[in-house]
């Protein structure tokens, strides 16, 4: 795919942005944002990832077909994680049938652990 090379300026801007985002995510980790710590961290990581993919890996100027391949990879990982989590996070959703009881976790510190009982 012959294409015009990206300008040096683009690489420098992306590099500096990546460093800035690294600093940001580290700083934000020291603030207590509750559940949003994870969300923010993942969003920043995703932004950094996008910058690397689009500019350092030239995806902005690569064929649509290749862009589709890259997107498919991310999408498939999302499928794996989401569908697996859909099992783990919903295990307590339905009533246990009569006569069954959950096996208590030995560790008192973490009762939110995976229930072993059936």
């Amino acid at each position, binding site marked *: 795919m012959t294409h015009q090379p990206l300008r040096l300026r683009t690489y420098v801007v992306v590099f500096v942005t990546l460093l800035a985002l690294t600093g940001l995510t580290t700083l934000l980790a020291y603030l*207590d944002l509750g559940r949003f710590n994870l969300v923010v961290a993942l969003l920043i990581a995703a932004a950094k990832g996008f910058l690397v993919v689009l500019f350092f890996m030239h995806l902005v100027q690569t064929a649509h*077909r290749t862009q589709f391949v890259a997107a498919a990879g991310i999408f*498939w*990982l999302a499928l794996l*994680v989401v569908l697996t989590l859909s099992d783990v996070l919903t295990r307590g959703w339905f009533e246990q049938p009569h006569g069954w009881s959950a096996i208590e976790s030995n560790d008192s*510190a973490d009762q939110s652990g995976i229930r072993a009982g059936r």
Partner: protein
Amino acid sequence: MSEAHAAVAHQFEGLEQQRDAATLAMWIFLVTEVMFFGGLFTGYAIYRASYPEAFAAGSRLCEVNLGAINTVVLITSSFTMALAVRAAAAGRSRAAIVCLVLTLGLGATFLGIKFLEYAHKYEEHIVPGLNFTYSGPSARQIELFICFYFGMTGLHALHMIIGLVVVTVMVIFTARGRLAPPKDTPIEITGLYWHFVDIVWIFLFPLLYLVDVHR
């Protein structure tokens, strides 16, 4: 007139088709790597969802300073790698070699710092399977976290080592003049691989080092 290494392999109709095929092949390979690491990310996700406190405690055992420094080192190496690819495509082989060597140096630095972290964990007796003797609440789940720490960063480090070997080969080939444009595709696809390894770390850093550090 025939060169020692033909520019176009016999199965291709021309250089453009060859470059096209090589680039697509590397992107598809990177997708397989996404799924490969993805299995570990999936395991991490379900255990973090199940044991949030233990994972936070485990993360506090990781050294944020070293992790942050390593992140900066790796991002910089991605920058130098991108510059190397750019220089090679423009035919500036000396600049390419300089940038590739810088990438090598930064990559080696990353591995050195990683080794230091592993050594610290060994000294603190928290290497699962070897000398894990942490005790206290949620010790078992913290051990699980440390398993993921070693597994994910270890797999990542293995990929970096392979990357360093490939970059070294690129340095040698460029020095011998074998990768002048339009034969610079190997450097381009090496760059793709290197950037991917960087992206994996970009996700590993917050997930392993920055969980609940505000406590």
